[in-house]
């Protein structure tokens, strides 16, 4: 067992884990943050995507013990208590959710993309999201939702700049 301390969704945590435990399993089973989903455990499906120090990362391909002092954001961390965020509301408006299993991964990938690139083109969005698999929707509504959510990130970027 090893100790590792990091920040998850603004909360400092200190966990004891086996060195072989992935960040995904640590988040889900040690910290009970079950919004992050595990679909393949080999880095293809993207369902387990979380943000580590601002970058979208597959939490099934990284070990929990590598996370010392990292700042991690999961789907729970981008969700308010009441209203949906603009990104989530766009996902709902465009009916991007069917079974909802891949959804947290898409939200985190899109959130990381639009935070860095609020003006991302449709082609860019499609390209970045092509690393996440969805079996239900055929992706078309997801692309529409992310395009729709750009305005909120653009506003945020503008107000941060002023």
């Amino acid at each position: 067992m090893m100790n590792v301390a990091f920040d998850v969704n603004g909360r400092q945590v200190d966990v004891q884990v086996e060195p072989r435990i992935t960040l995904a399993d640590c988040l889900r089973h040690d910290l009970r943050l079950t919004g992050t989903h595990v679909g393949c455990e080999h880095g293809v499906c993207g369902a387990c995507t979380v943000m580590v120090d601002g970058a979208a990362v597959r939490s099934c391909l990284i070990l929990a013990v590598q996370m010392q002092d990292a700042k991690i954001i999961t789907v729970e961390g981008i969700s308010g208590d009441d209203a949906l965020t603009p990104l989530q509301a766009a996902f709902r408006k465009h009916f991007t959710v069917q079974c909802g299993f891949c959804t947290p991964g898409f939200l985190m990938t899109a959130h990381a993309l639009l935070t860095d690139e609020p003006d991302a083109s449709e082609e860019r969005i499609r390209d970045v999201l092509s690393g996440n698999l969805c079996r239900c929707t055929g992706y078309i509504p997801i692309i529409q939702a992310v395009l729709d959510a750009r305005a909120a990130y653009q506003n945020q970027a503008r107000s941060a700049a002023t």
Partner: protein
Amino acid sequence: MTALNSYVGQAVERIEDLRLLRGRGQFVDDLHLDGMLHAAILRSAIPHGRILVLDTTAALALPGVVAVITAADVGSPIPTIPLRLAPQIDLVPYEQPVIATGKVRYVGEPIAVVVAESAAIAEDALDLIVVEIGSLPPCVDTGTAITNQSLLFEETGTNLALTYTAVLGDAAGAFAAATTDEFYVRCERLDTQRHTATTMETRGLIGQWDSKKQHLTVYGAAKVPFASRAMLARQIGLPESSIDLIAGDVGGGFGMRGEFYPEDFLIPFAARHVNRPVKWIEDRREHLLTCNHAREFDCEIELLCRRDGTILAVRGNVNGNIGAYIRSNATIAPRNLAQCFSGPYRIPNINIESTMVVTNKTPTGTYRGPGRFEADFFRERMFDIVADDLGIDPVAFRRRNLLTKDEIPAKLATLTPVLSEDHLDSGDYLETLDRCLGEFGWAEKTKLKGRLIGGRYHGVGVGCFVEGGAVGPRENARMVVEGDGSVSVYVGSTMVGQGLETICVQIAADALELPMEQIRIFHGSTTYLHEGFGSFGSRSTVMGGSAIIAAAENLKHNIRTAAALRLNCAAEDIILEAGLATSPDGNVVRWTELPPENLQSAGTYSSNQRTYAYGTHAAHVAVDAKTGHVEVVDYVAVGDVGRVINPKTLHGQVVGAIVQGLGSTFLEHLVYDTEGQLLTGSLADYLLPTATDYPNIRVYDQENYPSPNNPLGAKGAGEGGLIPVGGVIANAIASALGVQPKSLPMSPSRVWELINF
């Protein structure tokens, strides 16, 4: 009474989304029970052989291992998994034992279950189990299996498990009479490849045994919890009332998930065996290796028509590579393929034999549009081959042979054994053909046929389909008015990611004339109702929704009866709205003030009449002559579903199904080597469509011909989007290249071969 509400037909935002978008869903692996152990399963690495040695001593000695379960612990005889629908005595010898005993018949078959303090320790212990298997010659492809030189089940003496026959009219007579030049006969062999649903959430189960109450609770149920409970009860020797199956959020169904698999016995058994909760979560390799595979069929089909393109008869043989055992719904695809081969067309004489052949591959079951995707590929390809040969335009060929509005209801071929007779229920198939051609711009695009533009050949294809839905026999619902005036609705339909909660709340709110916020929906668990049938065969909306309507009518009757007593008027004069009952002279009583026995109801909807949604798809493709890559430049789908409950969830079903169909057509293939080893055991090898692959899809839904078979007028509509895709795309590729594709998938290498050889 005027309807205050009209949620049905509106694009109401989904109520499920509020939890799923915030990471608050509850999928089975999200559950943590106190004292819970974890299971891992030792699976056969040999496709066909006899277990000679099985020694679990070293695994048991590993610290953290609590138990290792083998066939010896399960006892004799080992229970088997029966057919869920249309049982057939001849197939009993081919049923899968819940754990291998004596023989193994496919790579992935369970041999032992390790239960340990963590999933990692359980997996470590698998490596310590000593198993020796004496190999027998494997039957991998259908052609090898039908020689019967190596038998999977020695006691039956054959690998040909059963043949279904679909008959309409007199095909033999029609062929025999066609002796002159005015007739035309074409015989072709075509095939579709093994692939499967591949849900994003793998399977998972938690078994919990209460030794004091002798009660078993199983989390992770889906699709058909009541049927699965009945199977488990018989296998494990408990009354059904001592078992509950609980369904939470479910990460995709598509026919695959929720059927009874060996683990559905093994995990509850393990929980009782160790008297602690046991969790098992399938990994992706296990998923690709052990969940029901589908679609591996080949056929030899003979089509007879007049030279003007009028179809007179079809006959032929279909072989399905069914895998190592006949699993719970393995017969559905071979049955559908034979019975529904004619699709929406007028084929007066039919004789199709559909044979299930057992092989040393993963057993098979349903995948969205079972047998129908395959039939449509075979049929629509045959049509274009024949039309091309006769010099008839492919649209004109279909127009000549589509059933007209006046010919519907139309009888399908009769299937035996386990007699099945069915009718196409309602519709105007030419209307959807015309609308599709119009939306697509067929007249213009067809001019591109075969043209080489910028290194790519262009082509267009079209195909028509029907989708059977609303499979019987019945569904149940129950309603309770709660103290706060809300109504709890319990329904036997189950959620598999299709937006069932939203749909059911829309229907219930309209039926009770209450705001949607006042309705709470409960589904998917055996604790809610005495009996439920679940979600398969595109039935949950039609059957569950109709049961909700029946329960709502009964609830309103009960409330009126009680209110009439209270308000001194006739029950039929009571007006119900917004949770109030009002008499003709204006006296009012709240529903919640009435006696509790009148504030509940049950409703059942029974029907064995299937619904048939239908439509036409058209595609424009561009084929790269150098690489064989095919771009779907435009894809248009027009479908009529009788009545639309929620246009956006319906639209999502159709678009999603089309993209799955494009995966089936271009990418997805469960490839085995000649020794029976699966070569595509990861999502890096088994390719699913991604966001960049198929962005150009246009879908038009209509509701011009309600089903006469249910009070909603709705038709099952979850599968139709997938059914015609393979045929339509292959026809477009044929038109681009002037070749005749006869096999799926249309991978770049296969398309390149069509161009170059």
